[in-house]
């Protein structure tokens, strides 16, 4: 059974775990909603909220991702199932891609809850294409999930290193947050200068690099683990 055919069952397992313990994903929704409120309280004028709406979406997703990524591996470590999968044997590449795809799906679900909340609370006018917005969300959550899955696999294994997940992940995903926030803002406010394709291209390039390389790096972590 090649590693490609193993990805589907791993994704299914991950999503089944999320479905069985829906409190985790609902916890992410609540966390993101609370964060949106906090951002609104921190902005001095209500009239500025529409300007920061695009950034608020991605700040919420970024912080929610740290919890989601940590949870996705913690459940494996607590039950020893990561070693079990490797010994089965499940190819480490399949484990990585399965988990990363599942993490991206979870983040996308969180995004579908955050965006309507931002539209209601922050009142941005959506001048752009909703389809383009979905494309940006897909590329953005993918770009967070790929390196995030790798970094979470590291930090969950070292005692006391969970606090390092944001320390390691945030510098890596700065281009993602920047590009996704700018692109989302352009969808909300309109794009008179035609900058949107460049930001989407940056997101696509980030995805291409990390989805191809991080799987190979993950195999070394699991082999040593």
């Amino acid at each position, binding site marked *: 059974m090649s590693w490609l055919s193993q990805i589907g069952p791993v994704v299914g397992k991950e999503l089944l775990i999320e479905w069985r313990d829906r409190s985790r994903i609902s916890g992410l929704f609540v966390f993101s909603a609370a964060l949106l409120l906090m951002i609104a309280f921190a902005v001095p004028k209500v009239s500025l909220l529409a300007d920061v709406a695009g950034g608020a979406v991605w700040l919420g997703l970024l912080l929610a991702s740290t919890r989601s990524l940590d949870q996705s591996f913690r459940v494996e470590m607590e039950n020893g199932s990561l070693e079990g999968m490797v010994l089965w044997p499940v190819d480490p590449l399949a484990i990585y891609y399965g988990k990363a795809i599942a993490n991206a799906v979870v983040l996308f679900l969180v995004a579908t809850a955050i965006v309507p909340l931002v539209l209601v609370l922050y009142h941005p006018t959506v001048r752009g294409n909703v389809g383009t917005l979905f494309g940006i969300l897909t590329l953005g959550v993918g770009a967070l999930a790929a*390196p995030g899955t*790798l*970094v979470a696999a*590291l*930090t969950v*294994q*070292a*005692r*006391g*290193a969970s606090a*390092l997940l944001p*320390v*390691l992940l*945030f*510098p*890596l995903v*700065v*281009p993602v947050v920047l590009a996704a926030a700018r692109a989302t803002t352009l969808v909300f406010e309109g794009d008179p200068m035609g900058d949107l394709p460049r930001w989407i291209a*940056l997101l696509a390039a980030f995805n291409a*690099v990390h989805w191809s*390389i*991080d799987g190979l*790096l993950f195999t*070394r*972590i699991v082999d*040593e*683990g």
Partner: protein
Amino acid sequence: MDTASWLPGAIAAFLAAGAVIAANLRSGRPALSLPTWDRLVGLLGLVLLVQFQYRGLFASPPERMMGEVARIMYVHVPVAWLAMLTFAFACLFALAHLLSGRGVFDLLVEATVEVGIVLAILTQIEGMLFARPTWGVYWTWDARLVSTAVMTLAFMGVLSLRGVVSDPEKRATWTSVTAILATSSMVVTYMSVQWWRSIHQMQSTPETVSGPMKELWRANAVALLLVTIWLVVERYRLAEARAREERAPPLPEAEVT
């Protein structure tokens, strides 16, 4: 060029020789015995750095448009080059470790990341000192400045992770993995002036810089390269000593008689 312009270098060479002799005498070695190769390289680099920094900061003519302020470029540009070069070598050593499994490459990753962080912080500080008189602010949310700060944080994260992992083999592999990941931020930093509308200068090329300035930049960069090599090797020796201590068998328990 008159002989007096070589005076700072001559004084630095004299002091370096004196330091070597003093160190030899303190360690009980013959006064004129040569230090290790890396210390020789480092001393040569320091002497050259004193000489060429003197030329850049004091003896060279002012820049056509920026005047005396531009002298900091003789410091800032070589330090920035060496910071990125050091991080690039960290990535190469990390790849070498993952491919070969040899511990020496892991120790070199530790050494180059740490030295690279110091150089990157210096780059940022010097850049801020340069920015104040030229842009009017110490800091602006410019692509080059922000990406340099992010690059520094990314590699600091690598060292932070190294500090919390006790298993040597896991620590080595994870350091290599995160160093390779952090290198992406170095690439973004280097290309930032081309990818975004930045107020920072574009990457310097021989075609964009006048002859005397170009030669002095290169000279300072070579001098700093020698110093960097020395720092990396010294840091490697320290990492090697710590690794040896970690591997040493425990002392036998004392017997009570």
